[in-house]
């Protein structure tokens, strides 16, 4: 728990001096946030935990790269996302042109989606193949463009678009079959 009497700068200052207690405090404070980000990408909690630990290891050993001028949380998020992408990059697949042509975005939510619980959302996301889930996360949650996604994942822009479309299609199918949310 981050004590109100000590601000984040002091904790980061302690981390710069490799104080284990400061590192523990930083880890404890941002663990849930980092897990939320990592879990979205990895689909499984165990893999998410591995990514989070990898990300914090990078943060603690490269804390000197962090500048106090920028906010810490986005920097941590960036590290977690990049760590997850590094893990997932090898699992990325490039769809064929036929797959690209087959992709189409259609359908609207029926409005009952508000009844979806967070667990159901997570469940659907977890069921996405890693490539689709990664692009979906980067595009929808992180708000990255396809060019940025293609650069991050070392794939083509077309592949990024394809994966996003297929991810959406996948989710729609789940909503239709499992929850009957689509018209």
């Amino acid at each position, binding site marked *: *728990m981050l*004590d109100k*009497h*000590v601000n984040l700068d*002091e*904790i980061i*200052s*302690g981390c*710069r*001096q*490799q*104080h*284990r*207690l*400061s*590192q*523990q*405090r930083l*880890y*404890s404070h941002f*663990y*849930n*946030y980092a*897990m*939320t980000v990592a*879990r*979205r990408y990895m689909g499984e*909690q165990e893999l*998410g*935990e591995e990514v*989070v*630990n990898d990300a*914090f*290891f990078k943060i*603690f*050993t*490269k*804390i*000197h*790269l962090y500048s106090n001028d920028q906010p810490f949380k986005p920097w941590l998020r960036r590290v977690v996302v990049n760590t997850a992408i590094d893990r997932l990059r090898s699992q990325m697949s490039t769809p064929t042109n036929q797959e690209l042509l087959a992709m189409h*975005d259609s359908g*609207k*939510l029926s409005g009952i*989606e508000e009844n*979806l619980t*967070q667990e159901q*959302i*997570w469940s659907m*996301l977890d069921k996405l193949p890693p490539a689709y889930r990664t692009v*979906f996360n980067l595009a*929808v*949650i992180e708000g990255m463009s396809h060019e940025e996604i293609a650069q991050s994942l070392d794939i083509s822009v077309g592949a990024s678009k394809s994966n996003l479309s297929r991810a*959406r299609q996948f*989710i*729609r199918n789940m909503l239709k079959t499992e929850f009957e949310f689509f018209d």
Partner: protein
Amino acid sequence: MQDLDDLFKDRLEEEAPFPNRSKQWQQLSQRLDAFDAGAGPTPKGTASSLPWWKLATLVALASAGYFAWKGYQQKAENNHLKVEIARLQNQQNKPVQEPIQSVSTTQETSKAQSATTPQTDIPVFGSTPKAAATHIENEQNRPTKVKSNPKSRSDKSPVLQTEQQKAIVPALSEPIASLPELPPSAADKQSTPVAPTVAQNAAAASDSIQVALALMMVDSLQKALVALQDSLLAREDKPMAAAEIKPVVKASGKHFRIGAHATMGFVLPKQKGVSSIRGQGISFEARVWKSLWVSATADWLNHNVATSEFIPKFHSHHDTIPKPPGGGGGGGGGGHFNSKLVLVESAIRQQHLGIGLRYNLPVKFWVQPAVRVAHEWVHISPSLATYKFRDDDPGGPGPNPHPEEDRYTAEKFPAKWLSNKWRMGLGLEKELPNWTFGLWADYSKDLSAATPSFDALYVRASAQYRF
């Protein structure tokens, strides 16, 4: 599609609680410990793991290795040159020794003859003409024996080519040639055909003083020739000796040293949670009298402290123990009167400035033992200390209101100077012509009563340039 995206974005951005945080932290902590133990590069600007002290150590070790290798090479080259010089000397001595042997053979012959004819030298004045004739005969035989190896004298040896010798050799023969012939002895009659002629002429010569003078001249000239040969040989030997023994540059000719050293230290007595002390430094030394040197050193050291209690001597610049966060608060249950300090963590950086004396013990060995003593001023850099408090169970019915809740506080402390620290050391040094490499064990003792600080044992590896 925007609805679907918004739905997922909103829901997935919500921060959810995840289990296994403590377990995951333990794993990460172990990983970080392994990393700090040297498994990889360390970030810049951290007190606990400065890469430049490692770099300084590596440079010192590399320098020591390089100069040791150079020393070994030099030694091998010297040995090779010695063998070569000895071989050349043998080659040059062979022709030179031949005339010496000839002369000594002549001398031995003369001595042997003198033994058989004891009246050869002095009794000449009062001796009979026969005895004088025997002496002359012997002297006439000498050049014959010396000329037994004329080539070696005239061609190879420069000894007989000097102007002095050229002047002496005719002088040796002239008096003999001008001597009147003496009557031969019985032995002479058998050994040489010249004897009868000399004996006949000697009979005709009545002036025995002239004969004696001639003999004296022959003896003195022969001795002069032998002495001249010896002196010339000795003169030829001199450059050989100088080439064989190389002049050694002794340390006594150097009066200053400047160098660097790497340091590893341990607190005494050993305290759990206090890391080893590591660092590096520089030194300057000047000879004040024979083996006594005055030295000035500067060391940059650091170590980590993570103890379960506040130990003042490891926090010399921390004056007070901080209160637990929220402690002493009034109502609302905000106060934590039962909070207990369970961990103090700090990275300490120190700079040691020392002035002292070093004395090289009068022991001749391939390494030079030495002792030293120095006074040190210690500057402790500003540092951040983190304190961890844990709420004790207040007892009574019901659960602990703050179960397993750790509370932290951190404080930054300013720099501080300590004095009256003394360092006593024993070391071994290896001296090369321009460099000295040393390995030292120093015991640092705090004699200050004002501010507590710890004692320590340091091991230092040093490289110094002498000039």
